[in-house]
C-alpha cells in the first residue's frame, strides 16, 4: 500500500517542514505495518499539473491546511485519488462561516453568528454585548479577537478588509458565550473520540497540553454529529461549556486533521484508521 502525506513547506524551513511528533509517529507505525509512506511537501518545488493527473498512491492524507496543499488535494481528487479528509469536507471546514451554518442547520448548538464585509455593520450588535470576531479561514485561534463594544471596532479592524489578491475579506462574528475559563476539545479519529480540557488562557506548558477527561454522552454525540454533517473523518471540535449549571454547550470551532496534542493514543489510532482507509475500507 502506498500512502502520501500532504504537507506544506514553511517559509522558515526551505528544506521542508519538521514533522510534528504525532505525524512522525503515525508514519512510523504505518511503515511498521508494511505501508510505503511518502511525504509530499507542497511548495518545496515546481510541480507539473500534468504529473498530478495520474495519482500514484492509494491514499493521500491532507495534513496541512495551507491553500496550496488544499488545492492540490482537490486536484488529486478530481484525478480520481482517495483523500482523507476529503476535499469537500476540508473545504467546508476551512470556511468557518459555512461550517457554522451547516452545524446550526443540523441541530448542533452554535453561538449566534454573523458575516459581513464591513466592520461597521457589526456596530449595532456590539451595543447589546461583546463579540468574538474571527477570520473566515484560520486555525489555532489566530486572528481571533474579542471586541467589547462599538469603540473596540475602530481600534482593531479595518472597515473593509481585503485579502492578499485585493478581494474583499469577510468578517465572521460570534456572540460571546461565558466559557468558565476552560477550553474543551474533542478529538475524533473515525469513530474513536477523546476529550481534553485546557485552562484558558494557558499559564504553564502543561496548560497547553491539557488534561484528559471523561466524555459526556451528549458531547460525544454532538462531536460525532459535527463530523457527520461536515463529512470529516479526522477532526477536532472545540466546545464551550458555560459553567452555569444549565448543561448548555456550543461548538465554536472545528479543525480538520488537528494536532491531537496531549493524546498518547492518537498515533496508533490514526495509523489504524489510515491503514484501513488505504485498503478501501471505512466510509
Amino acid at each position, binding site marked *: 500500500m502506498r500512502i502520501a502525506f500532504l504537507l506544506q513547506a514553511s517559509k522558515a524551513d526551505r528544506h521542508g517542514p519538521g514533522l510534528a511528533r504525532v505525524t512522525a509517529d503515525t508514519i512510523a507505525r504505518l511503515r511498521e505495518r508494511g505501508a510505503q509512506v511518502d511525504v509530499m511537501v*507542497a*511548495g518545496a518545488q*515546481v510541480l507539473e*499539473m500534468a504529473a498530478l*493527473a495520474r495519482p500514484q498512491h492509494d491514499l493521500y492524507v491532507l495534513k496541512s491546511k495551507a491553500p496550496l496543499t488544499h488545492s492540490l488535494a482537490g486536484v488529486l481528487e478530481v*484525478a480520481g485519488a482517495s483523500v482523507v479528509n476529503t476535499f469537500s469536507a476540508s473545504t467546508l471546514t476551512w470556511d468557518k462561516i459555512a461550517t457554522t451554518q451547516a452545524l446550526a442547520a443540523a441541530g448542533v448548538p452554535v453561538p449566534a453568528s454573523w458575516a459581513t464585509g464591513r466592520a461597521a455593520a457589526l456596530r449595532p450588535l456590539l451595543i447589546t454585548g461583546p463579540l468574538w470576531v474571527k477570520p473566515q479561514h484560520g486555525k489555532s485561534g489566530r486572528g481571533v479577537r474579542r471586541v467589547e463594544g462599538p469603540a473596540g471596532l475602530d481600534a482593531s479592524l479595518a472597515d473593509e478588509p481585503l485579502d492578499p489578491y485585493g*478581494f474583499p475579506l469577510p468578517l465572521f462574528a460570534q456572540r460571546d458565550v461565558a466559557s468558565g475559563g476552560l477550553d474543551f476539545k474533542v478529538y475524533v479519529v473515525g469513530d474513536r473520540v477523546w476529550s481534553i480540557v485546557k485552562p484558558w488562557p494557558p499559564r504553564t506548558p502543561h496548560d497547553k497540553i491539557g488534561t484528559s477527561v471523561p466524555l459526556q454522552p451528549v458531547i460525544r454525540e454532538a462531536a460525532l454529529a459535527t463530523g457527520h454533517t461536515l463529512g470529516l473523518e479526522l477532526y477536532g471540535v472545540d466546545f464551550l461549556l458555560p459553567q452555569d449549571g444549565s448543561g448548555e454547550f456550543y461548538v465554536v470551532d472545528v479543525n480538520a486533521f488537528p494536532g491531537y496534542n496531549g493524546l498518547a493514543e492518537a498515533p496508533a489510532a490514526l495509523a489504524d484508521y489510515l491503514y484501513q482507509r488505504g485498503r478501501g475500507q471505512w466510509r
Partner: protein
Amino acid sequence: MAMKVSLVLERGSPARLNPIIAEACARLQERGVDVAVRFPEEELLRVDTLAVDADLYVLKSSTSLALSLATMLDRLGGRLLNRLRASIAARDKLLAAATLARAGIPAPRSLVAGQPVQLAGELAAGPLIVKPYRGAYGRGVAVADAPTSLPAAAAHPELVFAQEFLTNARTDLKVFAIGDELFAVRKAFAEDSFLHAGQPAHLSPDVEAIVHRVGQAFGLELYGVDLAEDEDGVQVFDVNFFPGYRGVPDAARRLADYIAGALQRG
C-alpha cells in the same frame, strides 16, 4: 405568487451595476419576476438562522463571502446558477486545470509552485504567464520571459500558478456561453482585456465542440472560455463562471431569457 430570483453580485470599482446585468434585471421584472440584487459584503448576514428566500440564486461574484453564501444556500436546498461545484472548480485555477485535464480538453502546460522565484528554471523552455490562482478580471496576471521579470513573492503569497505562454498565438479568442448558445470575440492580449469588447468572431465547429465540453466538464451554464489559437489548433487557458458578456449581441435579453427558463424548469 411571483417567482423570485436573487442575484449575488460583486461591487465593482466604480460602484455601479454592470449595464448588461441592470438590463437583464429590468427584463426579468417586466416578465413579472421578483428580482433581488445582493452584495453580500454590504449586508450583515445572520449565519446560524439563514434560510432560502428565493427560487433561484444567480452567482456573479467570486468573493469569499459570496462563495460562503452560495455554499450555505446550496446546503439548505437553494438552487444556484451556476451550480456551486462548477463555480468552485472554475474559481481555483489549479482545480480548473485538473478538470480540463480529466476531460481531455487541450490546455497549455501548467505549473504550480510555492513562490514565483522557483519558476526561474522553467523559463528556459519559454515564457510563462503567471496568474493569481484565485484571480479574476486579469488582475495580477504577468508574462515572464526571464527570471528578472517574474513577479514579486508578495503578489502570490499562498502559491503561484503559471502556464506556458503561447507566443505564436496572435490573439485571444474569448467565448461566452449562455446555456448552449456561444458567442465569440477576438482580441489582442492585454492585462485589461476584460474591459474591451473585441471583434465578433466566427467559431469553427471544432472550437464550438471544445467549449461545450468545457461547460460539461465543469457543469457550467453561464460561462466564459478563453482560448489561444495558433497553427496547431486551440488551447483553453482560462475558464470563468458568469463573465461580463461584453460584446455579446443582445446579451441582457439572452441572459434574462436563460434565467427565466431556469426558473420555469424548477
